[in-house]
């Protein structure tokens, strides 16, 4: 069959790429940027949660926090391995930044990326005790769930497969968080504390969805690396937050 199709048209029509060899240059750059943002966020998330293990009030909570710490590092490694197939020096990459580094709790830089790595800005803020860690994990876990519905559809098949493996485990992290938050919110004192933590993290997690009408979204959509605009994903997350936290009196 000789009917060769322009690769841009192929991607615009929902085509899938399957190896580093058949990826165009611009696509390659955006794909690597997307992957490194995920890897850096998972590593920073894992590093942040490692500290939360010692906030845990009981064994069950300690196990949940350990599991989240472990699995987020594992998810980072899986995506980093895909980057490695494009030439990334994976060993150097993982030691390049201080993943546990955090700014002051009241620092304000919106969604801007600061510091050397590409983690989402929300992962620059420190966790402030067990209730705070659980609240952040629930809000960010729900956001990750929404964002993974996009990521499991990326047009680079080897990466989409990794995200499809990761998605159910990330969903479980959010569930573990919700179970913890329910226990916390059962008492008045815990509920007040959780409400303050949710109020702190809510705008910071919302910022991870990016701005409405983003120019980069157009580029990514053309490549089949995005399918749903930022504002739609954000609205979906807001709906989930209301649905899950409303009954607990936390929204």
């Amino acid at each position, binding site marked *: 069959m000789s*009917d*060769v*199709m322009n690769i841009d048209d192929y991607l615009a029509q929902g085509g*899938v790429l399957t190896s580093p060899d*058949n990826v165009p240059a611009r696509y390659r750059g955006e794909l690597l940027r997307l992957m490194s943002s995920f890897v850096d966020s998972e590593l920073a998330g894992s590093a942040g949660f490692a500290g939360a293990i010692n906030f845990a009030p009981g064994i069950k909570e300690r196990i949940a926090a350990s599991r989240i710490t472990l699995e987020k590092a594992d998810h980072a490694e899986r995506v980093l391995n895909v980057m490695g*197939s494009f*030439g*990334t020096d994976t060993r150097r990459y993982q030691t390049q930044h201080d993943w546990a580094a955090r700014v002051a709790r009241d620092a304000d830089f919106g969604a801007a990326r600061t510091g050397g790595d*590409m983690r989402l800005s929300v992962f620059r803020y420190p966790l402030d005790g067990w209730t705070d860690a659980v609240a952040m994990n629930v809000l960010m876990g729900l956001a990750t769930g929404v964002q993974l519905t996009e990521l499991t559809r990326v047009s680079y098949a080897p990466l989409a497969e990794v995200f499809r493996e990761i998605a159910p485990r990330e969903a479980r992290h959010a569930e573990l968080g919700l179970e913890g938050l329910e226990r916390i919110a059962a008492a008045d004192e815990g509920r007040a504390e959780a409400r303050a933590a949710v109020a702190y993290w809510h705008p910071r997690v919302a910022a991870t969805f990016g701005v409405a009408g983003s120019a980069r979204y157009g580029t990514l959509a053309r490549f089949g690396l995005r399918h749903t605009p930022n504002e739609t994903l954000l609205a979906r997350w807001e709906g989930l937050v209301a649905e899950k936290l409303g009954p607990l009196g936390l929204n």
Partner: protein
Amino acid sequence: MARFHSLEVVDVRRETRDAVVVTLKPRPEDEGAFDFIQGQYLTFRRDFDGEELRRSYSICAGTDEGCLKVGIKRVDGGAFSTWANENLAAGDTIEAMPPMGKFFVPLDPQSDRHYLGFAGGSGITPVLSIVKTVLAREPKSRFTLVYANRQISSIMFREELEDLKNLYLGRLAVLHVLETEAQEIDLFTGRIDAEKVQALFAHWIDVNSVGTAFICGPEPMMLAIAAALRNHGLADSQIKFELFASGQPGRARAKAVSRVAVEPGSGTEATVTLDGATRTFLMPRQGQSLLDAALAANLDAPYSCKVGVCSTCRCKVVEGEVEMAVNHALEDYEVRAGYVLSCQSFPLSEKLVVSYDE
């Protein structure tokens, strides 16, 4: 970083007028590295007039055949495939990276699955590997193959497929679709498009029983088939793709001759292309990387680590010369083709033209 190993060419068999099947043997110490999973491919490299070319070809052997075989169809103007078809002979050695690719699902000897494969032209090579392996290793599974070609004489592995049908009686069905040759049934003539896939699903293939579908062929065929499979309720995770060789970028051109370098310290006129738009700006010769200069000029250039490790910021020097401070990501052949890590690049020439689009 994956490494190349020497493989011995054991046999070169002409399969059709413009395709050969090459049997390869790794050195004893490399045998472990060349264990493959059905559906994977090998990446070869060879020097053509001082320029390194890399090409990937799917393995067409089953995992139980005890050898490595790839099918190479000659592409018009393709240096590597023409060389393989016309010059490669038993006794030669060829350099290849260990098998790669994820065009497979894990085997399960206990399962009784129905696999569906679509292959266009030489897209048959990885599918054949899967067919052979699955039929041998999953005694209760069956495979339906839809195989598109221009004409009978261009069908690769036609006899081998017939033999497999006889060997695994009732477990392998092959539907040949020929573009330019009329067949008894109209449905099997012409190109595979949305309409044809629809008709195949209506009359010939019970798509509801399909566990996994494999598609390897030209882009329009993959799009049409994937859309039809999704319409019939298959999830993305049930559809495996391998993009046809036509998707590989063309021959890498040699780096443009650099201008005479001028004294360090003075400025450079940089011209940067990104997303089809070109912008020219002045940048210092020292102290600011090409990436930082592009970002400062409001170009949304891709980058991540900024320390020469991840390769997100790779671009191509079209004219002029730069010096890379650190490079942990690009291989020599990429550098020779003019690629640089823009986060580590500092201009050496008065004029510099780079592109993120090539």
